[in-house]
């Protein structure tokens, strides 16, 4: 887990890398809509509360973009859809060992919801 002022930039860089990655299969490559949604939401979250935890994984699947933030005690995922017909999903979970102890998901989260979840994740990790 990387915590610090470069966290957002690292995550943005990873989004750019994956959207231009030639080895990413055509069917999985994130759509422009997914990348734009992720960039816009992260920029708006940053205005509410600076993002201080770097994504542990940025991955694409069938045009979607999923950003995972993980600690040893929990995780948050921002799942950006491939097109506007599907909602953005904000997922969070607490862990009991390797198994999730509790999980929840919000459809169409606001930037404030995402900021609150990242703050929750850092607090959860002590």
């Amino acid at each position: 887990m990387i915590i610090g002022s470069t966290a957002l930039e690292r995550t943005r860089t990873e989004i750019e890398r994956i959207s231009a990655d030639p080895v990413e299969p055509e069917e999985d490559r994130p759509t422009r809509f997914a990348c734009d949604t992720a960039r816009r939401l992260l920029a708006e979250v940053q205005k509410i509360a600076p993002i201080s935890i770097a994504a542990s994984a940025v991955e694409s699947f069938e045009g979607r973009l999923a950003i995972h933030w993980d600690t040893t005690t929990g995780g948050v995922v921002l799942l950006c859809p491939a097109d506007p017909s599907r909602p953005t999903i904000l997922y969070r979970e607490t862990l009991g060992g390797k198994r999730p102890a509790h999980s929840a998901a919000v459809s169409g989260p606001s930037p404030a919801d995402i900021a609150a979840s990242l703050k929750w994740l850092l607090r959860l990790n002590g």
Partner: protein
Amino acid sequence: MAPATERVGEWPHLEDGTPIYRAYRNRSDFNRTTCAPQPKVFYRRSTERGLSVGLTKQAALSVLRAEGLCQLLVGDVRASLDPLDVIQDGREHAEIVGVRLLDENAEAALRIARYLARVAVNLPLPNAGLVPGTIH
């Protein structure tokens, strides 16, 4: 001739201690930071009934031009909070069933994929000299 434990048209129940192998479709399926498979290795496509796994490394790698693979234990899959099972459907092939689609239940699909990625262990590719952390 089939082993005695096999039955025509119906394969034996897999014991919890049975290792299974899931292939990576491409290099981005492997997380270079954590040296573990990405959760996306365990997202199910709408064209799939379940997640295809091999009962041997070679069986897993023969399905596609794999860029790597990981190992899980059947018991770890069944220990998921979600009702998952591993069903053998061929001599060296099985499927992880019960995996939800992102489009039908994103919370469950993410919970399952992230759990399976945590219990999976990255393996070196046979004969390729590939070891965890060396995918570039």
